[in-house]
């Protein structure tokens, strides 16, 4: 029952009962990676809590042998916040989808990030509504034809990275379900971050949006489409033959150029920078700026106090200053008077 932290293995996180995603769904690989990473974190199994909204992705908690809550559509962030504020020692993970977390739930996503609540957010981005069988989502590419956009969508997708950064995210990363090794590194980094960790996981829905991320996998294109981020390293890709730099001094733009060998000209990745300008830039590569590769990895990781931390600090301070709760004091305060045999007497007197 109660395995010690050291002995925890992947098996401890696999519940009985079958997993009901479509065969071939990218969600399976994410599940397996999470179950692989958790036992390595040195956290007791009973301290993990997985909270989700509604969607295929949000079925996740049922497939984890941890505490879990499959809540309602778009609202997982609120429940996760309540859990964390009540018991900060828990390791709280939120699982959501591009519809759950960015369509109906976009506002809560913004606010939990802004507050830097110590919750790990895994956003499964398959650029489609899976559970409702294939309508476009806020991350679907413009012009996409779906059951509700027969002539193609007419709205521009949101970039989850930009959204999270503008919301003040202290940790932002992108990875893909098709690359378990990279995904597990990112998951570990997220787990180690104190504060909100926002992770976009590109996930293939092979039933309603198959091949959405093929370009990151195809032999022919993957080298030119992926840019793997490494702290302190220049932004190089295509086996270091290409790199990204900022051009045009007073009116800078991102451009990709051949790597002459001297890589000093290229932008260097610094996820720890105080401001979010470079991460914002890098997050747009490929996604908003055609012809450039897409950044994979940790875009930003800075340390700021988390909301739950500050909340409990204020509580401790208040107790230190005013002493802890006391029913009698609570009720018998304000302007009191007693009515007895004689006249009423003002108690403050």
């Amino acid at each position, binding site marked *: 029952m109660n395995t010690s932290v050291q002995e925890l293995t992947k098996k401890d996180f696999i519940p009985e009962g079958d997993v009901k995603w479509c065969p071939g769904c990218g969600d399976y690989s994410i599940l397996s990676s999470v179950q692989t990473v958790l036992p390595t974190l040195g956290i007791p199994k009973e301290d993990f809590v997985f909270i989700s909204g509604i969607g295929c992705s949000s079925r996740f908690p049922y497939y984890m042998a941890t505490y879990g*809550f499959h809540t309602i559509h778009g609202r997982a962030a609120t429940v996760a916040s*309540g859990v964390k*504020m009540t018991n900060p020692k828990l390791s709280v993970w939120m699982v959501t989808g591009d519809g759950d977390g960015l369509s109906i739930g976009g506002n809560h996503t913004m606010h939990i990030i802004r507050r830097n609540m110590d919750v790990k957010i895994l956003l499964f981005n398959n650029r489609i509504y899976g559970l409702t069988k294939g309508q476009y989502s806020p991350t679907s590419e413009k012009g996409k034809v779906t059951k509700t956009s027969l002539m193609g969508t007419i709205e521009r997708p949101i970039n989850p990275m930009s959204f999270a950064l503008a919301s003040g995210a202290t940790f932002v990363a992108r990875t893909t379900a098709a690359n378990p090794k990279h995904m597990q590194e990112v998951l570990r980094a997220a787990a180690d971050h104190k504060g909100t960790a926002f992770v976009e996981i590109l996930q293939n829905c092979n039933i309603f949006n198959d091949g959405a991320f093929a370009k990151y996998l195809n032999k022919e294109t993957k080298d030119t489409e992926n840019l793997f981020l490494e702290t302190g390293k220049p932004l190089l890709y295509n086996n270091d033959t290409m790199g990204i730099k900022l051009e045009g001094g007073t009116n800078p733009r991102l451009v990709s150029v051949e790597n002459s060998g001297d890589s000093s000209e290229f932008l260097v990745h610094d996820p720890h920078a105080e401001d979010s300008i470079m991460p914002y830039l890098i997050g747009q590569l490929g996604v908003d700026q055609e012809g450039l590769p897409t950044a994979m990895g940790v875009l930003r990781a800075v340390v700021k106090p988390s909301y739950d931390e500050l909340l409990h600090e204020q509580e401790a301070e208040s107790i230190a200053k005013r002493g802890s709760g006391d*029913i009698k004091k609570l*009720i*018998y305060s304000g302007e009191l*008077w007693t*009515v007895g045999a004689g006249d009423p007497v003002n108690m403050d007197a």
Partner: protein
Amino acid sequence: EKLESVTIRFCGDSGDGMQLTGTQFTTTSALVGNDISTYPTFPAEIRAPQGTLAGVSGFQIHFSSNDIHTAGDELDVLVAMNPAAFKTNIKDLKQNGILIVNQDSFNAGNLKKAGYKEDEDIFAKWRSRIRIYEVPISKMTMEALKDIDMMARDKERCKNMFALGLMYFIYNRPLENTEKWLESKFGKKKLVLDANVAALKAGYHFGDTCEMFQNTYEIPKASIKPGTYRNITGNQALSIGLLTAGQLTNLPLFLGSYPITPATEILQEIAAYKNYKARTFQAEDEIAGIGSALGAAFAGSLAITTTSGPGIALKSEFMNLAIMAELPLIIVDVQRGGPSTGLPTKTEQTDLLQVMFGRNGESPIPVVSASSPSDCFYTALEAARIAIEHMTPVVILSDTQSAIGSEPWLLPDIETLPKIKFKFHTNADTYKPYDRNDMLARPWALPGTPGCEHTLGGLEKENISGKVNLSAEAHEEMVRIRAKKVENIAKTIPATQVYGEQSGDILFLGWGSTYGAIRSATEELLKRGYKVGQAHIRHINPMPNDLGNIASRFKHVVIPELNTGQFNMIFRAKYLIDTKPINQVNTKPFNVSDLVKRAEEIIGGKA
């Protein structure tokens, strides 16, 4: 001259400090031993331009030598600090009532702002009906403060103390209490203190010396239950009740809320008690408010969310999840005028059906209601008891009248407070998420407990194991269990007390803040010799099991509600009794006299 009870309303511009004046008169009256009940009236605007009708603020006090239950129907005295206040309040003054106005503010400018003609004699049509006293309150305040080195406009702002002093004289009340209060408030600001005290005294002596007020009045002490009292509003009492529940259960309090009139004060009150492990979370909206509270309940807090009518719509989806998850959660709805944004500062009882039925599917939820400001304290404790002992969300219905009205609260002795019985489930071997006790409550096991890992959710499940199960059998059983679980609560509540006659012509059946008016009406009718009883319930869902029996002992069951008959519908459907509803939806609490009149008509067969 001796009087039994008097109703005074101070009204003026938002800036005139009428709330403060009223509160002072209230505590002083309490100290001289009267029973009291008050009700403030706020403008919907924050600070409408000075002198306009939209800017009028008022405070009403009913004080008496008897035991009273309402802030009073008609006014004996109206103190109006400007024309706008006069215009918006005069109709509530009774025949031969006393009107005291600040003569100085009835100038062309203010008359115009109030929508009168600059030279209009606005008292003309009233002179015959009421007693009008035009007092140069501002001038005389300035006069009284002429030696104090202070800017004119600051001096002028002391005029409310002058008015207060004058009322103290007319009703024979001591100045000490207010003087003491002024010291505690302005102790450091010597000048301000002196100015206010001087104005207060000036008002008092003016009454004494001038010829205007021939006679003053005595309101003898009421025979009040001995004990320690404090004056309290419903929002304060509710907050203290919730905090007390946290202390009694030793659970941290979690309040997830989003500001909304008139519930906001509860959030603000509780925010001041961090040292009580009361955690307030101002969420981004009502949904996040209840969502965070539900998460807090899952993790082991005594979880609460507070709102008012329009906010409930946004919380309904989560209320339903709480019903499925079977977690303890208190949802406070301080009702206000609706529908939609409606009348944010007015009172109404129109959310009953919304909280009972405003969710998809069959989703039974316990509902309790508060019958007066101080009763909000006990309602909070009862809601906490039900939520925790029965593992269920619970709705508390309060309303604007209880929330912002005030009355003396006989403070309970701590030992007598109800106990709340529960313990967390920690035994991994015996744990089944949807196991049941004899009341059908499921065990509460917190994240962090080894071996009790489980996943909650909104999909239908099977009993005991709690596993997702959408089968006919599972659904049928769970629908039945969720209903029975709520019905079981009725077994744990005390027998319904009937005040007055135990059988006879009329049973007044009520809930919520109409209590005071119905009680007063019942007393009056009993005085007049009618066989009338009053049953006022706290538990709306489930209803007490003895209601049908009690109702059957009376010829008529009269159900007064500040709505178009919401509880009435539920009661009629359940008992098939041809009840006589009395309904009013006009921003105002019931007038006792109206209830008495309607009751007499019903008995007389005229209705």
